[in-house]
């Protein structure tokens, strides 16, 4: 008996000897340490290196030359922000207590195709408002819905009430211009009211390892029809370059539905699910962790083309009209 017990003790001791600490290298809180940590986080976890043809090792060589041990936080932030800028990704940010490094060229370099004041004139003052959605029936019996932020939640109950109210309309316009994203659950909840059957809308993969091409297999994503009201008449979704992230996902969902037309400008993109990590100095970094694709496995990181390109004309603006809304009304009334 004592011998058996001795064997057990030896086994446990062996386990303790063999068992190693599970830990992550803790870089020093120095300019060099923070630079190396940021580069490593992106190297192991960012998901678009190959798609964007970015040589991240080369980026390290370029930007490490700007790192010195005596640089202050502002200078370090600028170098790290510039390094992240090479990724050309609106989901990549560096957050310090005093600044946010960002890449916003996906909409800053393009016409806005949206005027908040003109949009408000269409809504007037007697519009309905629930859960971040504003809506009203326009004079030609077209329903107009404006949803400017997918961070503001929308429930099936809200959508059912809205579609009941708009039931008499010939068609509806869903305006998601300048909607920079939010929760994908809101995107799919709203889209689910515009299909009466299960529809393949997209695929997703995620990183499974630290290599740039370590991805899972593509998983299909389906849009299930809502249990509530399902709109069967025509729908036009208005888009501009400021439609990003969850809004990009909403446009992708609606693009798969036969009664829906996308009108306006290309969306801004943002096809990667962003995750957060941090540096030794406490700065947070956000990065795209898993790529989403359309139903044909095309990347949507750089945006989705509309079915009909329409720009906001200066002539219409001068008359207080929105070219995209007017075009959509004409199409829905045909």
């Amino acid at each position: 008996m004592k011998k058996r017990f001795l064997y057990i003790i030896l086994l446990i001791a062996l386990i303790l000897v063999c068992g190693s600490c599970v830990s992550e290298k803790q870089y020093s809180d120095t300019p060099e340490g923070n630079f190396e940590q940021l580069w490593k986080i992106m190297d192991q976890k960012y998901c678009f290196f190959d798609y964007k043809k970015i040589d991240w090792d080369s980026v390290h060589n370029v930007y490490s030359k700007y790192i010195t041990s005596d640089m202050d936080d502002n200078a370090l932030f600028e170098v790290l922000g510039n390094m992240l800028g090479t990724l050309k990704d609106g989901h990549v940010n560096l957050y310090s207590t005093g600044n946010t490094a960002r890449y916003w060229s996906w909409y800053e370099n393009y016409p806005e195709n949206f005027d908040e004041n003109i949009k408000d004139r269409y809504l007037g003052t007697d519009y309905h408002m629930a859960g971040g959605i504003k809506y009203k029936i326009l004079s030609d019996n077209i329903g107009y819905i404006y949803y400017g932020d997918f961070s503001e939640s929308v429930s099936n109950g809200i959508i059912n009430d809205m579609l009941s109210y708009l039931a008499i309309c010939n068609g509806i316009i869903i305006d998601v211009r300048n909607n920079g994203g939010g929760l994908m659950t809101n995107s799919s909840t709203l889209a689910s009211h515009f299909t009466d059957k299960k529809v393949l809308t997209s695929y997703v993969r995620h990183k499974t390892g630290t290599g740039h091409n370590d991805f899972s297999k593509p998983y299909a994503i389906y849009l299930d029809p809502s249990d509530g009201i399902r709109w069967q008449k025509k729908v036009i979704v208005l888009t501009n370059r400021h439609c990003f992230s969850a809004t990009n996902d909403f446009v992708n969902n609606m693009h798969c539905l036969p009664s829906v037309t996308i009108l306006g400008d290309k969306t801004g993109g943002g096809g990667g699910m962003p995750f957060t990590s941090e540096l030794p100095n406490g700065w947070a970094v956000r990065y795209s962790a898993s790529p989403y694709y359309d139903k044909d496995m095309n990347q949507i990181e750089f945006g989705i083309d509309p079915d009909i390109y329409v720009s906001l004309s200066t002539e219409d603006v001068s008359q207080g009209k929105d070219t995209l809304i007017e075009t959509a009304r004409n199409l829905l009334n045909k």
Partner: protein
Amino acid sequence: MNYDTFRTLILCIELLLPTVLSAQKLDSLRTNQLTVRCVQYGIGHSNILDTYLSTQEYKGIDFRTSRETMRMTNIGKGNVSVQNFLQADFSFGKNRVDNNNTLAGMVNWNYGLHYQFKLSDNFKLLAGGLGDTNLGFIYNLRNSNNPASLRAYINLDASAMAIWHFHIKKKAFVLRYQLNTPILGVMFSPEMGESYYEIFSLGHYSGTIKLTSLHNQPSLRQFLSLDIPIGQQQIRLTYLGDLQQSHVNNIKTHYYSNVFMVGFVKRLYKLSNKELQKLPTSIQAY
């Protein structure tokens, strides 16, 4: 109250033995009816890493409570004891520059058997196995789509214990050291870049349940406790080193806690119905 329920009434041996069993010899006690129970509360230090949430370690305070019972069984000619250990803890940690926090909580239940090797009247070694169930979370207050990590895993642990009864100035003390380490188990873990939205909203569960063993979950729990008699009571002081680690799906985690705990030890004797019927109803609470 029905007959079976009534049989399970547990009465404190410290109260009843003098009146009921004082005339009996010690060896007439059914040792499998004698349970040692201790409820403890503790505070300590925690060190939390979960690379799904952050590359940085979070260090802070750990609050913990535990409930442990041990008794002999009839198994192995009465040489096998059963241990039931339940603990819950809550940690609050901060990163090294103290500009972000992590909350963590775990519930852990161990239940298993030890064979007791009685090397002398006062000293014994125990070896056995435990079922080790864990459920908890780590929540990073700043993250966006990866704000929290669900910790859920079940293990079969190897367990060893040494118990030494000794006296100082005729007072009985008990020193105990126990070490548990998981040998085989299963663990829930998202894949490295997989969001919980993808798992729970889209239903992509593939690859989230992984087999674990020494190579990817080198963990251990160790207890060093001293039972000290104070008057009619017995106080237990415990150092608990709870070192949980995993490296699953390319996600590294560790949750180290070093906690000092204190509680009262109770010895409970479960009476059979026959013995209960010998008790005058006038002295029974119910």
